[in-house]
């Protein structure tokens, strides 16, 4: 990690400021964010800032709220009881305050997940609950709710030589020519001990994600820094009746719904007025890349088969050379 000093930032002259790339954004943070690649000082002007400060218990004039959050204009308040409160302003500024009795080491993983997810939505980006690898110069995304097997599949593909682009959260930009691209951020994988053992990744195991959890950062085999054009999106499903194992291409309406349901988080899409944006993105992505469902048994023993189906599918849709 590269630390910046004294760029007029942070609570005191002794504080270190870290500069990271998060989903294509340069982010200056007074808190070390494990599992991210650092950026070199002076390489980029920060797009967003993370710093400690005072965060209110509630917002005045909230227009929408949930059990843990409030939205008021350009301000978004997230409260994780017993851990921390986060205030996000205008897609640029994140202020965090630890709750009484909390462990400061618990804060970064929530910043890297939900908090950045909200920030990216404030910036009107398309953000999916997805892990991604690179295949033949294209980004391949696997999306689904927590426990769907995104990280395990990305880890297994990374072991097979496909570089990891991102884990758990994936921002997509669509340029003026209508080309969707994915911004990697060199994030490490987060895997449960069960997955680490079953995938034989013990040697790559890093720090615990949180002290109380048997979930660890895992260094992937290879990563990428540059934006990568989107190749395909697979929504992951467990092969329970009546779903049969296999890869299918849903119709346009279903594809749009799949994309929105796999937003990080669908509630934000609705509350931040982005439904139309996701609908248009689904059309663009379906045309430029492809939206598919991948249904398989949620069983590590089946992983080699699943990778086999994927590689066959990638040959079929022209992402990989056909075998000689």
């Amino acid at each position, binding site marked *: 990690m590269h630390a910046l000093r004294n760029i007029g930032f942070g609570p005191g002259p002794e504080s270190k400021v870290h500069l990271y790339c998060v989903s294509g954004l340069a982010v200056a943070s007074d808190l070390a964010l494990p599992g991210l690649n650092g950026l070199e000082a002076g390489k980029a002007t920060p797009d967003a800032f993370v710093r400690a400060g005072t965060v209110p218990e509630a917002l005045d004039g909230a227009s929408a709220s949930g*059990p843990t959050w409030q939205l008021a204009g350009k301000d978004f308040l997230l409260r994780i009881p017993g851990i921390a409160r986060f205030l996000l302003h205008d897609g640029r500024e994140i202020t965090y305050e630890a709750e009484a009795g909390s462990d400061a080491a618990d804060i970064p993983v929530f910043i890297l997940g939900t908090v950045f997810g909200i920030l990216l939505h404030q910036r009107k980006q398309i953000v999916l609950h997805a892990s991604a690898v690179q295949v033949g110069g294209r980004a391949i995304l696997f999306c689904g709710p927590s426990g769907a097997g995104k990280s395990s599949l990305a880890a297994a593909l990374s072991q097979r030589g496909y570089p990891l682009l991102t884990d758990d959260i994936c921002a997509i930009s669509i340029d003026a020519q209508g080309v969707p691209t994915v911004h990697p951020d060199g994030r490490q994988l987060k895997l*449960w001990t069960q997955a680490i053992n079953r995938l034989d990744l013990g040697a790559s195991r890093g720090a615990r*994600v949180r002290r109380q959890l048997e979930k660890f950062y895992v260094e992937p085999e290879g990563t990428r820094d540059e934006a990568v054009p989107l190749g395909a999106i697979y929504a992951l499903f467990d092969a329970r009746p009546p779903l049969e194992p296999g890869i299918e291409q849903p119709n346009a309406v279903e594809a749009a719904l799949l994309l929105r349901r796999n937003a990080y988080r669908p*509630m934000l899409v609705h509350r931040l007025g982005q439904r139309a944006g996701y609908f248009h993105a689904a059309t663009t992505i379906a045309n430029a890349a492809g939206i598919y469902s991948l249904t398989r048994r949620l069983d590590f023993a089946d992983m080699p088969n699943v990778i086999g189906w994927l590689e066959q599918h990638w040959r079929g849709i022209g992402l990989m050379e056909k075998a000689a």
Partner: protein
Amino acid sequence: MRTIWLASYPKSGNTWFRMLLANLASDSDTPADINELPRRGHIASSREPFDHVTLLDSGLLTDDEIDSLRPLVHAELAQGNLDDEDNIDTEAPPVHFIKTHDAYTRTVTGEPLLAGRLGADGAILIVRDPRDVASSWANHQSCSLDDAITFMNSNNAEMSGGRRDRIFNQFRQILPGWSGYIESWLEQRDIPIHLVRYEDMKADTAMSLARALAFARYDVSLDAIKRAVRLADFTELQRQERAKGFREAPRAQRDGNFFRRGEAGAWREELTPEQVARIENEHAPMMRRLGYVPVTSGKRAISG
């Protein structure tokens, strides 16, 4: 929208009850598909609705942290704020029934886990003779009858908890023994309860269902109830499971028999006298309270 919990210890007829409701909701003469029971939020311990309304990844929270947020989440969900479908309001039935195997417990700060009156308007508590539950639970868990009885006799058992090295698609559910579970619901004073005995459902399904629906203030004709009873007949559920599998069955059992016998009193053939005694020694007071007559004599109970 009204929310009614369908609360039961596992293997007590909850799925059958939900199939009856599914057949009520449709006006066709084709039986409702066992794999079309509502897939999202069908059980109170589902991970997805929690993540949806909190914006959090519950996989990053401990069981206790999740439990401390659940009262807020259930209160939110009872408002109908799922927000993830375009037409949720127009298609929603008048009463939202949600299955739960959670005991009626309180969080460390003393709030009811299921949010009391804020979480639901009432609960239909389905109970079944524990001697029949035991063999059904053993089949469901692919474990021995003795292990099933040990689980039912434990006052600190739980489902989807205990292991911290992986993620479960449901939250930890506290099951303080068969008696403890039922007592937790019968003793709470937050919401009204309607008790349904599985054995009464078997004996007169239409009458049991009609009474439960009256409690839930779900207005439906007797003809519709009779049709639902016919369409959700146990042999029909078994037929569908054999033909297509049941998505809610345990993984080891996907091509097996979730809908196993569905009988009342089969324990007389399936349990040894010692197994019967182990259950009755632990649960006789609650069994008597619910009208399940223990058969173990005092002497055998002591030696068992």
